[in-house]
């Protein structure tokens, strides 16, 4: 069946999950028509970008069992690559290509070096080393202000087809004007789907199986004749490449990039939360996790505001429900999911589905 081939044979295996995934895909594809307004479109675009980013992190964390804190570094490299190239070369497709190409090369080189040097050591050391490297990179990016714009970041123009000023037709279609913004959005959605299916292909290949074997028992995988260091490094390189592409998408969508939008440690924490809450070791988890997290990030605050005002009399409870404290609740959910359902939402749904049949 073509559907199964498209998903590389890795079907959702749960009716609820399937419905959710279809709903998310439909929701994203129809956002410009169903939910008018700039905020909804931005949220949908952010979800797309983070699906790619979180899935690429899952390749590393969920499938290979490596904790890296340098993932936003590669995300940032992608975003800076596009930003710097378009800023220097002006708005052209050649600029986009040069930016993405240079960023990919840099990411590949860096991830290869980090991987070969430090993937031999224990998980703890790798986590610490990547944390240190990422911090240094962030400092570097904000210091090289001639190249990166420093703390202020870079604004730039995107190729005309994607810019808001471009118009495909005079007449709006179903009440939505057919401008460059809409084209960028659909480009984003298409690239996201393609990259996601590609990653699904990778993790369901024989190569992906070896990665899972390493995650389960590195010693045994080595004994079976697989060079674990090599496979780990490959996993690191691939995940860095996808993160770089996600960064490039982010820069193209925002037409801006700075240290806080793509390099900050907060984003690293966010993607860690998304991957774990959604479900590690299954790429569908990253779709669910990213969607849930970003919707919560953008809309839970409104809900909490209501709740917080309702608690007007009780001081501590009011502060706990303050809209700025949304991360507290997601943090608690994160801790609970690491204990209670380490396979995340997707794992839970799949177990349930297995129990019924």
């Amino acid at each position, binding site marked *: 069946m073509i559907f199964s081939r498209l998903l590389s044979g890795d079907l959702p295996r749960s009716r609820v999950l399937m419905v959710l995934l279809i709903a998310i895909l439909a929701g994203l594809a129809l956002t410009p028509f169903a939910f008018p307004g700039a905020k909804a479109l931005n949220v949908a675009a952010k979800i797309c970008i983070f699906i790619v980013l979180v899935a690429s992190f899952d390749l590393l964390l969920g499938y290979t069992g490596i904790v890296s804190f340098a993932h936003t570094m590669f995300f940032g490299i992608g975003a800076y690559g596009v930003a710097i190239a378009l800023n220097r070369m002006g708005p052209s497709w050649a600029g986009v290509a040069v930016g993405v190409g240079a960023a990919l090369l840099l990411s590949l080189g860096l991830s290869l070096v980090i991987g070969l040097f430090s993937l031999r050591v224990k998980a703890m050391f790798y986590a610490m080393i990547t944390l240190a490297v990422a911090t240094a990179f962030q400092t570097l990016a904000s210091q090289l202000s001639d190249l990166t714009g420093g703390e202020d970041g870079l604004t730039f123009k995107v190729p005309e087809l994607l810019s808001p000023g471009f118009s495909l037709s005079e007449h709006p279609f179903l009440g939505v004007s057919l401008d460059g913004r809409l084209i960028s959005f659909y480009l984003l959605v298409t690239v996201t789907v393609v990259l996601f299916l590609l990653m699904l292909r990778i993790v369901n290949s024989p190569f992906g199986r070896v990665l899972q074997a390493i995650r389960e028992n590195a010693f045994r995988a080595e004994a079976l004749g697989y060079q674990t260091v090599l496979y780990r490094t490959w996993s690191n390189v691939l995940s860095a490449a996808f993160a770089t592409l996600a960064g490039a998408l982010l820069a193209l969508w925002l037409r801006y990039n700075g240290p806080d939008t793509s390099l900050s440690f907060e984003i690293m924490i966010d993607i860690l939360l998304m991957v774990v809450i959604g479900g590690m070791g299954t790429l569908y988890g990253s779709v669910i996790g990213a969607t849930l997290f970003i919707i919560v990030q953008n809309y839970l605050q409104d809900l909490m505001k209501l709740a917080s005002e309702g608690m007007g009399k009780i001081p501590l409870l009011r502060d706990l429900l303050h809209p700025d404290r949304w991360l507290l609740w997601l943090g*608690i959910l994160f*801790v609970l999911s690491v204990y209670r359902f380490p396979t995340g939402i997707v794992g839970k749904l799949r177990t349930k589905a297995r129990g019924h049949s």
Partner: protein
Amino acid sequence: MNASTPTTPVQDALPQVKLDRIPLLLLPVLALAALPLTGSLSTWVTLTFAGLAMGMIIFIIASGLTLVFGLMDVLNFGHGVFITLGAFLATSVLGRMTGWTESESLVRNLMAMVPAMLAAMAVAGAVGFAFERLIIRPVYGQPLKQIMITMGGMIVGVELIKVLWGAQAIPLPLPTAFRGSLLFGEAAVEKYRLISVVVGLGVFTVMFWVLSRTKVGLLIRAGVQDREMVESLGYRIGRLFVGVFVAGSALAGLGGVMWGLYQQTITPEMGGQVNVLLFIVIIIGGMGSVGGCFIGSLLVGLVANYAGFLAPKVALFSNILLMVIVLMWRPEGLYPVGKR
């Protein structure tokens, strides 16, 4: 193999381990190397003192982290939250004692500082106890989950601190008598740095004494070397570990007070920002080694201050450079701990 060797006298059976002196020499060598570069003796004295003070505070914070790792292979990514907690408690305590902190008398200032430090240590220790129970105990021996869960604990901890104290930066002024500097000839040494060095040396001495002269210390050191052997001799390493974890958290709280006063402004994110520095220090020292942690902290402090004066741009990366150089020389850190 050597079953036939004759029985040796007891004193020979336990040969004294020779102290590895080379890392100890690093500090004076580094300081002397910096002397001609800084140009003047007075600048050098000021910088060296600033570096030592910073190093001492880092040591107070990092010592618990390295011991906890040595004993149980637990690396607490949430250690930073205890620093933040200590600093915020200090604002609350010192804020209520403005009469004494703003007095000119050193004695009164100290009488305000001591309760602030004790409160920070007590609360951080208590929170550490709960943290160990709730966050760390369920995931012993699962490094992947440990990293994630301690990170999660940190997120929740920081958010709770924001709930209690607010999310904005809070000024933490030094008590009056601690401000300003003392002049030694041409060299100016800030009073607070002097105090940090004294407190740091005090903590180091007590810790050294406990670890090398008491039975608990012996067990801790033995546990770091070989946990299973200590357990098989009938000691409950789990309890020992809880004790070390609580002590480490309390020290982080104390370090938070010192660090907060050093920075003079505190934010809920300060602990997370120090985390990277702590990891660098304990990697340099050799994971699990207190002596290595002490030397590592002082090295980091000195290098940061010398580099900050000589080449401010390089100073931002000086810690990482230092780590890379040390690891190229000794891949396991200055004082590698046996089993690792």
